[in-house]
């Protein structure tokens, strides 16, 4: 990551306390693309019997990553809020592994940014979850 993007990443987390609370790490925010990872943490477990991370924590990661992708799109207007977000859970994330989300803002109109995302654990070929969302764009 070059210096510009790491500054953006740092500013992003200073502005988003909840992402910091979940220990998220930005690896990319530029040009409508974002990549954010979240380490395995026992506090985020949803099913104590299996140790699988709660869907809510995956949702929080996806919302953050999709929002970051929308925000970084050149036409987005510099601030954003989620309008709606749908998450499909393909399979439980493997306990102990970090989860990495990637998102792409593939279209921006005057008022809406359209984003899709994907979350993976260490097995890149079988996504844990996918997301589709719309975000506020422009000076709404």
């Amino acid at each position, binding site marked *: 990551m070059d210096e510009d993007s790491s500054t953006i990443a740092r500013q992003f987390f200073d*502005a988003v306390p909840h992402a910091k609370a979940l220990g998220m790490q930005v690896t990319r925010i530029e040009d409508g693309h974002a990549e954010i990872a979240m380490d395995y943490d026992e506090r985020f*477990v*949803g099913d*104590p*019997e299996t140790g699988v991370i*709660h*869907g809510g924590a995956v*949702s929080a990661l996806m919302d953050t990553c999709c929002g970051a992708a929308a925000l970084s799109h050149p036409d987005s207007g510099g601030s954003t*809020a989620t*309008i709606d977000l749908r998450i499909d859970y393909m399979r439980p994330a493997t306990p102990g592994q970090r989860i990495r989300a990637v998102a792409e803002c593939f279209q921006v109109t005057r008022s809406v940014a359209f984003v899709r995302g994907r979350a993976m654990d260490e097995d890149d070929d079988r996504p844990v979850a996918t997301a589709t969302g719309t975000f506020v764009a422009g000076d709404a």
Partner: protein
Amino acid sequence: MTQMQPEPVQVIKQRRDAALKALVEGVPYSRFLGVEFDRRGDELTAIMRFSDSLIGNAALSALHGGATAAFLEVSAIIGLSWSLLWDDIECGALDPDALVRGDLPRLPRTVSFTVDYLRSGLPRDAYARARINRSGRRYASVHVEAWQDNRARPFAQATGHFVMPRGDG
């Protein structure tokens, strides 16, 4: 013919509250978010106490969309699990002490969850109630609404589909 005496109210309440507490506290992520549940009969209201760590936009002091989504999902899963457990709690088939010892029932698994953000989440406590629209042998569909100051002005709503735990109903 002799009629059975109804159980004393405190015995019933103690059993229901113990089961609910065990169910909620058994999920580490609910504790992390600071979600509690208020019970009136079988009706649950989820409460997410405001904390600075839930903020998603420091400039506006707005709740993070992810925190709101997670709150709704916790409310939906606990609401659905509670409705599945209710009959067993009532007839005494489910032993709340076993729950407290960590012998938790398997929880429903989320298939999909769609959140609509209706208003910006304020830096205040949030409440949510889940309504189970369908609860079948294999799948369930649950709708959740969350509000802050005014019950009639929800700030977010969600619909989730869940796969039922095996061996239940």
